[in-house]
């Protein structure tokens, strides 16, 4: 058991590290997106700032900071200012509950590689994501512009609808592992079948749940092909039409941070989290799980970008019909079948 001072110190250090890593990851996801989409479209993407354009996120950040922060005269000011902050706060909070690796000991202090380990971690993450809608909805409303309002309305309707399918797709995993704690869910996925197939939930019959989760998560993060809240061909820029400079950047960062959280959750719940082959000296063995976990997140982020570069956007009625008439019944069916099988086994 740690003393209170050590506990606070360790928590602060972990929080700072997690935030720095997350924000850097956000910046470089933007770079990756510009680069990959560029190559998909037979262009180069950013090349001018630094080697391979690697310093482009830094230049973008400086640009956002020095741009004029316009506040249109017709907005409802308190909420107009609060909305991007809410978006970013909720997007950054959920990283506190994401475990990225095993328990490590540094200088005699044993600590899990996450900011805090709670026994209802998954539920809290779902709660935080469900609160994240407010940033988008209030931005759309307080901007007092029809494009923004339509974007905000679409966003809230879409997120509430797909949240149900998302939540139900996770219950299959919860039945298999019997815990809300992300660490225990990952621990339950250790080991292999027949010596080579990893015991990940996706190979334990949760493959439908995985795809339902993936589709619903794309909709939750407002990404192509579900980016109707910011459909630039019809709504200018949707809910953030009236935002500029750092306020716009906050929405941008929130969107990418949400993508990373969703990728983390998908890896933890379906792809075995940080499990992977361990070898080499003790130091390498301590670092390898984090690398395996990061590799999975990278795959998901690449998938996001790949799909953005490939697929067209849904029509709004298609989006709603798909969410309610296809995803939701499939998620319920998956839940019933999983429950039945687990009950038969036990």
């Amino acid at each position, binding site marked *: 058991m740690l003393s209170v001072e050590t506990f606070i110190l360790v928590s602060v250090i972990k929080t700072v590290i997690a935030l720095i890593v997350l924000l850097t990851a956000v910046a470089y996801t933007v770079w990756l997106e510009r680069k990959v989409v560029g190559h998909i479209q037979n262009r180069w993407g950013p090349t001018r700032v630094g080697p391979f354009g690697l310093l482009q996120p830094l230049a973008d950040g400086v640009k956002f900071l020095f741009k004029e922060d316009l506040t249109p005269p017709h907005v409802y000011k308190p*909420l107009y200012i609060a909305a991007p902050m809410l978006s970013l706060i909720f997007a950054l909070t959920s990283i506190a509950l994401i475990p990225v690796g095993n328990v490590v000991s540094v200088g005699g202090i044993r600590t899990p590689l996450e900011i805090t380990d*709670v*026994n*209802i971690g998954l*539920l*809290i993450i*779902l*709660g*935080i994501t*469900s*609160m994240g*809608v*407010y940033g988008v*909805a*209030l931005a*759309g*409303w307080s901007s007092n512009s029809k494009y923004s*309002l339509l974007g*905000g*309305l679409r966003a*809230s*309707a879409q*997120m*509430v609808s797909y*949240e149900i399918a998302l*939540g139900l797709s996770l219950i299959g995993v919860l039945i298999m592992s019997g815990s*809300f704690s992300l660490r225990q869910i990952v621990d339950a996925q250790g080991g292999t079948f027949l010596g080579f197939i990893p015991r990940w939930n996706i190979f334990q019959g949760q493959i439908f749940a995985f795809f339902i989760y993936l589709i619903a998560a794309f909709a939750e993060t407002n990404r192509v092909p579900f980016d109707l809240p910011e459909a630039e061909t019809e709504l200018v820029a949707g809910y953030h039409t009236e935002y500029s400079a750092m306020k716009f950047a906050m929405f941008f960062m929130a969107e990418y941070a949400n993508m990373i959280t969703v990728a983390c959750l998908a890896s933890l719940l379906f792809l075995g989290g940080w499990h992977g082959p361990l070898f080499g000296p003790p130091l390498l063995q301590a670092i390898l799980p984090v690398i395996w976990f990061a590799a999975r997140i990278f795959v998901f982020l690449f998938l996001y970008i790949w799909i953005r570069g490939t697929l067209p956007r849904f029509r709004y*009625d298609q989006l709603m*019909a798909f969410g309610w008439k296809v995803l939701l019944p499939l998620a319920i069916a998956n839940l019933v079948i999983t429950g039945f099988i687990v009950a038969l086994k036990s």
Partner: protein
Amino acid sequence: MIHLTLFLVFGAICVAGAVNLLVQRHPINSALSLIAVLASLAVEYLLLGAEFVAAVQVIVYAGAIMVLFVFTIMLLNAGEEERTRGSRVAMVIGIPSLLIGGVLLAWVLVRHSGTEAVLAGALPGSPENVAWMLFHEFLLPFEVTSVLILIAIMGAVVLAARPEATSTGPGKES
């Protein structure tokens, strides 16, 4: 000690949010105050050890139901409300009921003054405990509630379905 301080702070936020809900003239501000009330209630549940109920409170009430409230306010583009001088009915019925409520509360508090207070975190509130109680002791009320909700959903569908849409099926508008 920290628990008690946090409990009092969030209790104060809860009451302040509830008062603000009534005082604010714009519906969206009232809705946001209600979200603050619900969220701080969730923290109170958490401090009392009911972690599952706290998480569900945030997901269901603050995250889903209030989104629909805000959605409706945005959709109808409800404007500021006018402040009236108050209705006579509210004065005639409100003040006596406030008094009665206060007396009842005081009576309950005085009557149970000797009993020990529930310590923060002393009650079983983990998901396992809640599930055990729901599916053993309270199975019948639980099932009855689910049937009740099903009836409510069907009622909503009947009310929402337009007469001409019943023959062509929902979603196929002319």
